[in-house]
């Protein structure tokens, strides 16, 4: 597919790591990429990326003059219909500038990264723009369960959406609860730029194991659960060390103190990327204790590096990890299951450890590369545009 204009919309620039990877990957094709939203930091992209993000309200006003005024009457009407029910002036201004900009550039595809904002953008179909939604993590897996109105909104709007990108097969299954038509869905896994993730063969020492978790201190990461299990595991193997990067919170701090495991369990705040990377290189095991994930990028990265992964089977994790082959899976929220996997891993021989991590690297090379991700996404766009 060539010479199409695709708007990748996440609302902010730069966006999350995986969305930025997608933008960079897509910009290496022959298509034009349009970015809309608030600019928090200047990022350099290829020349085929139209970076129409704004820093402040003044730029928004300029955008309105530049993009709203030249619009044809029917599009002006469309813009007005979308902002009239907005209550605050700030939101009106934001929507007016963003919508005008999108209609001015008139992309072939408007790709929304976060499902919750679909209601605000589905009207673009009236302007002949195809609307695609990414199905990612919390937006599908728990927000509509907690908030019934959101679930209802999905049920009403999803049938009108032209296409869906699922970060895993599991999330597409979950989204079926909300009237999703699976014929216009495609799984496109997240992918890594492999030259940035060098595989390193590790020597695994059964006696002393360094376990690492990485991720923000959010309840869905289930750090208290992991600490409970690791405290039990310490009774069998007092030589393990468990470190959580990003997991420092009042709750985990109190827990490690109450369980008297501060010596073995270290809680750190957020660290710069390079430090996270060097910690990951040094670790023997990457533990993903999460209750909910689409597909956790940190697992893909650990597998690429040659670090053995123990992961909960939440979300799409079983689509990456085959238990005992390229890592280990435990039953989500089951302490016994995680404990038994920890026991198993602690008894692995060096050759077994290396066999598993090598398989893991192979999995990433075969299915989770940036190239696969971009090809998969372009195929989805092509499929939707050929309707």
């Amino acid at each position: 597919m060539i010479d199409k204009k695709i708007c990748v919309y996440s609302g902010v620039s730069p966006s999350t790591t995986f969305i930025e990877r997608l933008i960079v990957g897509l910009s290496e094709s022959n298509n034009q990429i349009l970015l809309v939203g608030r600019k928090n930091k200047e990022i350099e992209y290829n020349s085929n990326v139209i970076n129409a993000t704004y820093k402040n309200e003044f730029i928004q006003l300029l955008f309105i003059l530049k993009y709203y005024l030249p619009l044809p009457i029917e599009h002006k009407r469309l813009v007005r219909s979308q902002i009239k029910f907005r209550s605050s002036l700030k939101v009106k201004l934001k929507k007016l500038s963003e919508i005008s900009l999108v209609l001015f550039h008139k992309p072939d595809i408007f790709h929304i990264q976060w499902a919750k904002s679909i209601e605000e953008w589905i009207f673009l179909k009236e302007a002949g723009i195809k609307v695609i939604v990414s199905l990612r993590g919390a937006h599908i897996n728990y927000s509509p369960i907690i908030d019934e109105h959101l679930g209802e909104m999905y049920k009403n709007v999803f049938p009108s959406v032209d296409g869906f990108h699922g970060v895993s097969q599991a999330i597409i299954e979950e989204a079926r609860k909300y009237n999703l038509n699976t014929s216009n869905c495609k799984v496109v896994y997240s992918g890594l730029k492999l030259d940035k993730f060098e595989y390193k063969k590790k020597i695994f020492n059964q006696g002393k194991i360094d376990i690492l978790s990485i991720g923000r201190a959010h309840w869905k990461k289930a750090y208290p659960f992991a600490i409970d299990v690791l405290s039990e595991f310490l009774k069998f193997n007092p030589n393990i060390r468990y470190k959580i990067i990003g997991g420092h919170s009042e709750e985990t701090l109190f827990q490690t103190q109450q369980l008297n495991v501060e010596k073995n369990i270290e809680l750190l705040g957020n660290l710069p990327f390079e430090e996270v990377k060097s910690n990951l290189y040094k670790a023997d095991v990457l533990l993903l204790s999460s209750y909910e994930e689409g597909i956790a990028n940190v697992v893909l990265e650990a597998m690429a590096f040659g670090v053995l992964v123990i992961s909960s089977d939440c979300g799409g994790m079983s689509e990456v990890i085959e238990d005992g082959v390229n890592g280990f899976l435990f039953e989500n929220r089951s302490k016994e299951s995680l404990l038994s996997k920890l026991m198993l891993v602690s008894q692995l021989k060096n050759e077994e450890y290396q066999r598993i991590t090598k398989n893991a690297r192979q999995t990433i090379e075969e299915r989770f590369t940036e190239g696969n991700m971009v090809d998969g996404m372009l195929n989805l766009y092509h499929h939707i545009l050929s309707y």
Partner: protein
Amino acid sequence: MKIGIVLSNPPGYSETFFVNKIKFLKEAGFEVYLFVDKVSSESNENCIVGYSQGNGFIEDARRKLITFFRLCLSPVKVFNLFSQNRKDGLGLRQNLISIFSSIHILSYKLDWLHFGFATMAINRENVAKTIGAKMAVSIRGYDIAIYPLKCTNCYDLVWEKIDKLHFISDDLLQLAIANGFRESISHMKITPAIDIEKFKYSEHIQNKLLRITTVARLNWKKGLEYTIEALSYLKKGGIDFEYSIIGEGNDFERLKFAAHQLDIFKNVKFLGKKRQEEIIEMLKTTDIYIQYSIQEGFGNSVLEAQAMGCICIVSDAEGLSENVLDGLTGYVVKKRKPELLSEKIKEVIHLERQLKLEMISNSVSRLKTEFNLEVQKQRFIDFY
């Protein structure tokens, strides 16, 4: 006698400990002044508000002006406080914070200055001495069990200056000692108490469906995720129930999703915040009351549930094992062990009716003698 109580907000209607304390002291002829950082809409208490950012430009300017006048009113005291803080090694910034956070107190002449939570006394350690009052501090849970983890040795200066410590359970006193409090300093236990007339025992009608209740903020300290896990084991074992959580908080999403993933979504009702009368009505039809906290100063709601004739199962977090006597007035289960909690619930379900009635009778008579408002009132007076 004039007593100043320092709190962050005026006590809301549900904070019965402070509401009762103020009421009792006034009834006993004490003059009570309430010093707060911010006002809240919930309280009718007259209070003296300290320096804080106002809502909107005019309110903010008004507060700044009041603070300026207060500074002008007590220049000697401000100077004395500044000097004493400096002697204690406070840097200029901390010293200024100390003065601005205490400026509303300095112009009062009091016999006692009582900090309602230990955290309220940090940076205000010299205020009581400056105004010629004795200094009392209450420890209530979070301030002694959790806050020092984030701020090591934060109470060293408080313990140096304090005249008397109030604690609500023995475990909390032990925590204070572990955090540097010396037992040679005067200290006294005053536990929460309840109005036996309001929370009156009425015999429960046998429900068709087992009803379990917890009253708690939706916060990690309350151990609600463990409780939900324990209840999921119950469901797996074929026991049906309705579990009501009364309270609101940040963990709503976390807990609702836990109920969903653990397959008890329909069994768990999140009822939000309720008025006291509504809670009483709920407790009338509750079979088992659970307070499986990770950290708990004492647990007032457990007293109320016991008074209403609910069988209570609590964790062994701090004051809870003092609140409920295991096997006599309810059950105490080791904290963070949902499988044990689940076993205990099953045990209670199968408990003979006569034994249940005996347990309830034990609780009610213990409440009448140890946790009634008259006893509490006398202790408040004795404290000073």
